[in-house]
């Protein structure tokens, strides 16, 4: 079943000058159609300004399409009556960990979503406990968010979304402000949600290493979908990715260069282990 579906989606930012006259129109998303199935791990890649974050905000009904339609679990995001149901089914984790934590104590922040949804008190506690355990932050439940590291804060934010029992979570560059360790923590948590809880994960990023486990990758450029396929398919087209100013993981690049110089290797090698095996070392 499809959880997120976009048909001919176009979104325009209208720039206005000081008098409010239209100064120019930027098309952030240009006629995009895609279909994401329930339970998938999807990665959306793209350079700055490629429209990937704008697309993410459509899934949560924060932005509405200028043209075309987006459906989340069969609900049209342009219909105001659906807004709260959509936000409940499609959670969102943002980039800056400090700017999305509302509570002064970890557990209170995780409880914020269920509180808004009108979940009864006992059930809120149950959900908070489950969600914090799922991201491995249960022992920090009484701490102030200010004392956590970036990766831990992001995991609290994930727990906060998880406590709303969504079907789908959109991660909008969740690791852009983290150190390498924090990045790993967050990606591990996202993968666990997808594997264990079966939640659809849509990961928006520009770090190539984070997408090798995805079921499907969309590469966006100038508001259009430039490439799509499995990570292996996408990474086998090194030249195309370079033309889009995206880097491939070092291992993939090495394998690509070796192959160009006549070493017999399969296309789209993603991990060190794979390369070692393919080289027969």
């Amino acid at each position: 079943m499809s959880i997120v579906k976009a048909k001919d989606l176009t979104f325009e930012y209208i720039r206005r000058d000081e008098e409010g006259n239209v100064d120019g129109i930027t098309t952030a998303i240009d006629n995009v159609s895609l279909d994401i199935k329930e339970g998938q791990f999807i990665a959306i890649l793209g350079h700055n300004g490629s429209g990937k974050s704008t697309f993410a905000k459509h899934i949560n009904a924060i932005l509405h399409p200028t043209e075309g339609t987006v459906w989340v679990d069969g609900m049209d995001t342009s219909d105001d009556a659906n807004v709260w149901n959509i936000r409940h089914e499609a959670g969102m984790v943002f980039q800056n960990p400090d700017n999305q934590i509302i509570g002064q104590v970890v557990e209170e922040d995780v409880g914020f979503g269920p509180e808004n949804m009108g979940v009864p008190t006992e059930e809120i506690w149950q959900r908070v406990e489950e969600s914090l355990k799922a991201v491995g932050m249960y022992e920090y439940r009484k701490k102030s968010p200010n004392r956590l590291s970036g990766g831990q804060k992001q995991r609290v934010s994930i727990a906060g979304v998880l406590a709303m029992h969504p079907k789908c979570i959109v991660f909008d560059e969740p690791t852009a402000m983290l150190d390498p360790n924090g990045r790993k923590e967050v990606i591990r948590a996202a993968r666990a949600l997808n594997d264990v809880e079966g939640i659809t994960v849509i990961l928006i990023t520009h770090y190539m290493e984070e997408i090798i486990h995805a079921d499907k990758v969309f590469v966006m450029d100038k508001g259009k979908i430039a490439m799509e396929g499995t990570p292996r398919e996408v990474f086998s087209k090194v030249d195309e990715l370079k033309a889009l100013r995206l880097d491939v993981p070092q291992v993939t690049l090495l394998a690509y260069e070796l192959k160009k110089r006549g070493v017999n290797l399969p296309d789209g090698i993603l991990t060190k282990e794979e390369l070692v095996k393919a080289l027969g070392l």
Partner: protein
Amino acid sequence: MLRDITLGQYYQSDSVIHRLDPRVKLLGTVAFVVSLFLSDYFLGYLVAILFLAICVELSTVPFKFIVKGMKTIVFLLIITVVCNLLFTTGTTVVSFWKVTITVEGIRMAFMMALRLSLLILGSSIMTLTTTPNNLTDGMESVMSPLKKIRVPVHEISMMMSIALRFIPILLEETDKIMKAQIARGADFETGGLIKRAKALIPLLVPLFISAFRRANDLALAMEARCYRGGEHRTKMKPLKYRKRDGIAYGILVIYIAAVIIVGKFGIPVGGFVW
């Protein structure tokens, strides 16, 4: 470290007073303040002092901690005492140059000083024993009847708790910007008042821009998590009255009655009724 600062003046402990419902403490403080204006004689204040002493003892907050709060009003206290001493007319005690001090003046000055000190001490007991978080919750609940006259009670308390969450973050950011500007040659420390105020501009502008950006992000994050104001909202930690809160209310009523009754009697000392 800036991120470790405690806001307000909460003193961590696990006393009976700490565990009381914040609503009891809020209403109790209001009742205490009112009680200070109910009696005209010293005996009534004696009851108030006694009551406060018991509360302080029960709260397990060290007395010197509580007195710290008095520092801020020393100046106000002195002005009050001097004004009352000098400008109250009545039976003269001493008179020199153009100044006359009267019996009534001494009495007034003493009473006002006592009243002010008790007021501050009484309210510090509340802030010392209640976390800011709990306090905002309590306020939301106590003020909820005001919703009927369209006071946005929930929004006010939400704003207060968000402000509390962001104060340490913004402080840290101020520190960062300050260091960045110093590294670029900004001078925050020398020069007169005007020069220093001007020097703050390169600090305040980026700080404001960043604060607005944060506010925008936070609003988005809140909406994404289904926040739509106070309606249809349940509470993770609802305020619940327990037995001890009922007892505390009972004690408050007894206290007010005691102040009213005792406050009717004065003791004649030094040719005047105290």
